[in-house]
């Protein structure tokens, strides 16, 4: 889903690589996040409701009543399937085109992100299944760090170019504070 080969824009000359992906399948689910919802999700996607502020198997916790589901299949099909399984009131919407998705790769991804996100990004505080809605400079984003030298970030599509430029600027060579041990 996040292969660099499908990137629509890529900058590899900085201290870390910055890539913007082509639209990725994303579905917003808003509902009371109870066991029934978790069971329905598991049937459709193989994974249930993740714990607070976590991302597990492509399902991200956005708010106490909101999840973001990343999908490689047709979002409309997933929405129909979930709709048929979920009996409680719920909102399902395709948001694949509403957001820009980025991958950062290389030693120092935490350093780059910590230039704009006012959160504790140390490996002890922010593990590979943590997911955080925060900001990057002036822009609202959500981010996670699925592997030691790899970070993922989403923002609204309208500021996709701004965020790409921001990331390229922040990852220029000789600009990393090297604050994080790994």
């Amino acid at each position, binding site marked *: 889903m996040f292969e660099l080969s499908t990137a629509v824009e890529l900058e590899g000359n900085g201290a870390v690589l910055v890539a913007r992906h082509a639209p990725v399948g994303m579905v917003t689910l808003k509902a009371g996040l109870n066991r029934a919802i978790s069971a329905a999700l598991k049937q459709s996607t193989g994974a249930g409701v993740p714990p607070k502020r976590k991302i597990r198997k492509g399902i991200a916790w956005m708010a106490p009543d909101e999840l973001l589901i990343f999908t490689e299949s047709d979002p409309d099909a997933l929405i129909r399937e979930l709709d048929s399984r979920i009996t409680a*009131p719920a909102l399902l919407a395709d948001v694949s*085109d*509403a957001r820009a998705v980025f991958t950062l790769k290389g030693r120092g991804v935490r350093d780059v992100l910590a*230039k704009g996100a006012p959160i504790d990004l*140390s490996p002890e505080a922010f593990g590979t299944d943590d997911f955080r809605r925060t900001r990057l400079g*002036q822009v609202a984003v959500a981010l996670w760090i699925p592997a030691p030298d790899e970070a993922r970030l989403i923002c609204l599509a309208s*500021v996709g170019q*701004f965020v790409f430029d921001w990331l390229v600027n922040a990852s*220029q060579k000789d600009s990393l504070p090297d604050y994080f041990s790994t």
Partner: protein
Amino acid sequence: MSFRLPDGGCLIDRSQPVAFTFNGKRVQGFRGDTLASALMAADRRMVGRSFKYHRPRGIMASGVEEPNALMNMGEGGRFEPNQRATTTELFDGLIARSQNHWPSLGFDIGALNNKLARFLPAGFYYKTFMRPQWAWKHVFEPIIRRSAGLGQVPTKPDTDRYEYFYAYTDILIAGGGVAGLEAALEAGRSGAKVLLLEQSPYFGGRFMVDDVEVDGRNGPAHITYLLDEIAKLPTVTLRSRTQGAGVFDHGYALGFERLNDHAPTASGPRHRLWRIRAKRIITATGALERTLNFAGNDKPGVMLAGAVRDYVRLYGVAPGARTVVVTNSDDAYRTALTLHAAGLEVPLIVDSRPQAGALADAARQAGIRIETGHAIARVNGYKHVTSVEICLQSGAGNAVETVACDCVAMSGGFSPVVHLWSHCGGKLLWDEANAMFSPDISRPPTNQHGEGFVLPAGAALGALETEACLASALAAGRQAVDEVGQSRAGDTAPRQVRAQPEAPMSPVWAMPANAPYRLRSKTWLDFQNDVKLTDIQLAAREGYESVEHAKRYTTIGMATDQGKLSNINGLAVLAAALDADIPAVGTTTFRPPYTPVSLGAIAGEAAGKLFKPTRKTAIDGWHESHGAIFEPVADWRRPYAYPAKGESVQAAITREIVATRSAVGLFDASTLGKIMVTGPDAARFLDLLYTNMMSTLKPGKCRYGLMCNENGFLMDDGVVARLSEDTFLCHTTTGGSDRIHAHMEEWLQTEWWDMQVFTANLTEQYAQIVVAGPRARKVLEALGGMDVSPGELPFMGFVEGKLGGIKARIFRISFSGELSFEVAVPASRGLLLWNLLLQAGASHGIRPYGTEALHVMRAEKGFVVVGDESDGTVTPHDLNMSWAVSKKKDDFIGKRGMQRSFLTGQNRKQLVGLRTLSDTEKLPESAHAVENGKAIGHVTSTYFSPTLGHPIAMALINGGQGRLGDVLDFSAGGAIRKARIVDPVFYDKEGARQDV
């Protein structure tokens, strides 16, 4: 004269010469020099003119407290004023210019002010220039502006990059002297995460200069030991060239890192602003030496004693060949001994105390003459010191002896750097023995749990002597470990210190004690702002008894150094003048940052194209490449018009309107907010949000709705489409999408949490394109795939399907008054659809139109725009939209608000149309309607209508709806324009054009 010593200087590398220019002249120093040490080595002792009196000034200090040696640094995009030479590391090609002199440093016309000093007393600008009133603007201010002030204002944009960094740590330590390093080692051994910031390029502070022995190691060796031990700890981070600049609530701190000031051509950012969250903050910020208050203490060559020692030991520079030391305490004796050991002359140590301490014996053994109970009466020399006159400290300044010298090393004792402790509310104690304010550790700044979160250590705590300093640092490290919830790794044994014991100091606030006016009026307290002893005394006499008032009246402590040298002396003098105790007078407030932080660092990366995010639609690139000129709407940029080459903007707008009204136009409406509202209670929820009824809307239909706030004032409008029984899509204005979504969530989460409703802001999921004009249907039909006939898709209906192969939802709504379709497709398909529509419409004369054409067309139809016709004080009734306010509903937001008596009267400002009597002159934007000398309303929208061939306008006029046909006067930049009140719907009132 000052000069480079043949050897010594632990920070410089004599094999690496560095060339720079000062006032255009080439000078040479060594790698490791500061600009100040290099200037001094080159015998450049006069480095600037003072702020007010233009007196010659020299380097006084060796660190951040330097008041005089401020430079205009760099050129062009790297020019920066007020840079301290003492904290500027030397690099090849450095360009420095002295400040505040005209025409030259050596000859300065402004120095006349010195002779006119009696006309420039404290608060002179409140007194001298009161009358005549016109003279301030035309005479006094221009003269003062030319002669006063420090650095110049940069004229070119900054070429450097800056950035932020957000860091979290258990323990933050400000200061990398011995106390900070000891605390870092002690705390770091526990495994706690420690971040230590040191403002200078090297660690060790005074330990690099002073003769001490710790655990059998000399000062520098002990620092090396500490650094080696710390390097073994993975959780401790040391950052040099980074100042702990401020402490704020909840353990928040500011670090200011100067990465490339010493290497401006290196890659990477110049400054980095660290925004740090720490559980505990240890302030190991040391102490600053104080000046002594004697006549002529501002002349070049008069320096702080500790700084004199720094220049010899750190940089191998002699500030003078023959130095008189003057002191009220023991530490300055170390300077005398250091100078003597370097082979420099020390003709005399003047000690104001009746008796000196053990260090005096060492000086005597070295053959240095000491005069206790004495003082300096005055310093002779103009551009630099030539001699000092010695007198009794207890006397009135009658000289008993004149001693030739070219340098004076003074020490008035020390003040702990309590700034960071105080920034967030830490309180101070007056330490009588050392005559200084130090932290009152029983009253620390407190965090969100009510716990103290700042721990002072070392000299910053007031522990000036080495043994106490080290003990307090280890204790602070341990306390911090305990308080952040780590367990200690075994305590370090107390350090074994060998240092000379010190005798008590004796405070001296005036030298000599009974100095007459003639001496006091040449005695400086604040060097950077030119405040003298007599200024403070005058302020006290004139009733400025509060220290905060005296500060502002005299401007003491208000320069870029924020009174680092002057504050304590100033308030001691004020206390003496008021016959009060020093602690009763108190200090002024310490505010962050500790030293000035560059504006670039505060702006961070937000400059140039990263200045502010601009939201762009999926079709934005097409607009740009087709010559659109843009206007900002909320955070979006939208095409205002598409002028062709050589075409005026007005002509383009006219062409776009004519094309749309006569054939077909294309408009990017993607920025309109689109909020999905779903759930069993969705219809009930929307009935409460909108003023009109939404629950009666049939699935597959659209309805225009208004939203008010609780006061009954219009806040947003838009078309609501009912997608299914329990799902609605609410369109908002471009600026309203985030605000209205938040408004919905606020009501759902805080008031109507029992409703089963979910909302999602889907604004950016869709690109939305308007196809409007008599041939609009033909264009969509040419694209194919969906039946858009009037039967299948009537006015205010919508259909879903595939248009030209793209999944689409087509709404039949109109803001132009024409036959109009709004096509929503997934945003990633937006540009494709745009291009397909252009292609399909080519034979029909399709043209894109911008927001201005849109606005003209909606005004022709009398449609309002939220924010133009409404301004937060306008109800739907004021806008003739009572039809959109339900009378059947029990409640909705704003219902009670708009029923209040003053919102229902007939004389409210009401929306009307305006037809100018002239067919060529349109009314100015916001022009006021004037009647009987009173403004009775104003223009809200005004355009030239190409459709009608004359200007049109809308306005809010008192009782306007009852005044149809009246002619009103409008003020237009001095002239009066007449316009008749008419129906605001100028065009196609029956709506025949949109309903075909």
